């Protein structure tokens, strides 16, 4: 199971302060069990906010979010969040990072290490079990972070631009790697990116957000068999569609930002 339903979700940051910012406004959409959904939108459109809400780290200021029919009340290891920044703990070895969630649950050391090793093997990092994060490349660190989520048996992977900090080669490699892990696993993925090619390559469905405050602009099913050919005419068509959809939003966001900066300077 891994079904998420958002109904009229609104999120305002800093309520009651002078720096109130509406990040999401009236967002309704759902993610089916086992679906790979990619969220794209101009920067600052509340994509990361959405993931914070889905993970349960933050609560919406309006509307409801349910997970498998139950309202989300807080973080749950069932829905794991993976950040762009490496979030492995630098003082722990790779295997102890992967086993961390099990440790929190009180699983004995030997048992949790066995379990972690299994997932390290799956992500191809078995030889790096006793290395520390700073000895791993960026791609390896993200693979370990994914292993950490899988180790707890997460049904939903919430990924916040997880490959944005990687170079092009590694990024492409990681995308295929993620699809390998996901295919046939029955896991649900909500993947945020600002990278159009990434969206078209990975997603079952691409959800497009407007500039701030983020609203749902469009939802596009990607009807291409995997593995997808990134230089095929079909791929080109989706890419063109997303570019066209986003262009007007990016321009609007840009203008608003410039206006805000102008006003800021005036006030100062």
């Amino acid at each position, binding site marked *: 199971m891994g079904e998420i339903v958002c109904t009229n979700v609104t999120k305002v940051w800093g309520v009651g302060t002078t720096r109130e910012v509406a990040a999401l406004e009236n967002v309704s959409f759902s993610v089916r069990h086992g679906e790979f959904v990619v969220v794209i939108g101009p920067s600052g459109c509340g994509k990361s906010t959405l993931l914070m809400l889905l*993970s*349960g*780290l933050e609560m919406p200021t309006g509307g409801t979010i349910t997970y498998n029919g139950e309202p989300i009340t807080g*973080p*749950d*290891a069932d*829905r*794991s*969040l993976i*950040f762009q*920044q490496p*979030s492995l*703990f*630098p*003082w722990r070895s790779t295997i102890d990072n992967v086993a*961390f*969630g099990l*440790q*929190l*649950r009180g699983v004995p050391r030997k048992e949790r290490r066995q379990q972690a090793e299994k997932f390290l093997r799956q992500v191809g990092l078995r030889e790096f079990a006793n290395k*520390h994060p*700073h000895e791993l490349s960026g791609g390896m660190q993200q693979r370990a972070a994914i292993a*950490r989520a899988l180790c*707890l048996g997460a049904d939903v992977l919430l990924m916040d631009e997880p490959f944005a900090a990687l170079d092009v080669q590694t990024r492409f490699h990681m995308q295929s790697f993620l699809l390998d892990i996901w295919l046939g696993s029955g896991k649900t993925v909500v993947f945020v990116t600002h990278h159009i090619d990434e969206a078209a390559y990975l997603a079952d469905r691409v959800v497009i957000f407007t500039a701030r405050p983020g609203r749902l602009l469009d939802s596009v099913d990607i009807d291409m068999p995997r593995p997808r050919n990134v230089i095929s005419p079909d791929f080109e068509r989706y890419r063109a569609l997303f570019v066209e959809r986003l262009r007007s939003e990016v321009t609007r966001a840009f203008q608003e930002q410039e206006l805000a900066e102008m006003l800021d300077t005036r006030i100062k």
Partner: protein
Amino acid sequence: MRSLAVRAGWWVLSVGTMVGLWELAAALDLINTVILPPPRVFIREIENQAQFLLPQIGVQRIGGNFVALTAIWASFLRIVSGLALAFIAAVLLGSLAFSLRVFHKLTYPVITLLAPIAPVAWIPFALVAFGIGDGAAIFVVFVGIFFVLELAAVNSMKNVDQHYIDTARVLGASRRQVMWHVIFPAILPNLFVIMRVNLFGAWMGVLTAEMVGVNTGLGTIVLVGRQMMNMNLTFLGMAMIGIVGYLLDAGLGLLQRRVLWWKSVAHV
């Protein structure tokens, strides 16, 4: 290996030049060797102590004889106990201030007011409150380092990268688990830097306390040498103070690199 030899070479050359010039000036009668005895002479003073190199705590004051090793041990024990107590207290109260806003608001002004009082200024009070002996000296080290360390602890805790905390929470960590598994290890390297920076101030506090009232330890050796116009003893004491201070700093540095090799993930 080669760079180590080169560094050692420069060390020998540097110290050798200083000692050489000093000895030369003494041999040529350019300096008064009663006031400024050359190293060759005052280091021999330690031979006079040989019969007293017993595992006693404190210094036996028998005529002009002061037991070198026991004096070193007494001063060393005082600074290490003071540092350890200050560290434990700073982490405990820092955690309390970090988790309880009221406690922080209540204590912060007092601590910022007490922090700038130089450790040396606490000595008269310490002698009255704890009497002559270890208690007073340990207290001086404690106050010299505790306030700064507590402020640093709270500040570092507030600045731990939110991604690490969020990651732990998503993996199911309770508040207490976040504190223990994320915040403590994250701030440890910072606290050690603060300890090292303030080490020499604390060392100064111990020695001064030993000079003005505690009556045992390295500080006392230096002072008694002056009172008896025995500069051999004073310089021997100074040499030992220098060496012990150097070794303390080197020891903390080693601990930092070996045990706390990761960089702090708190941005201070």
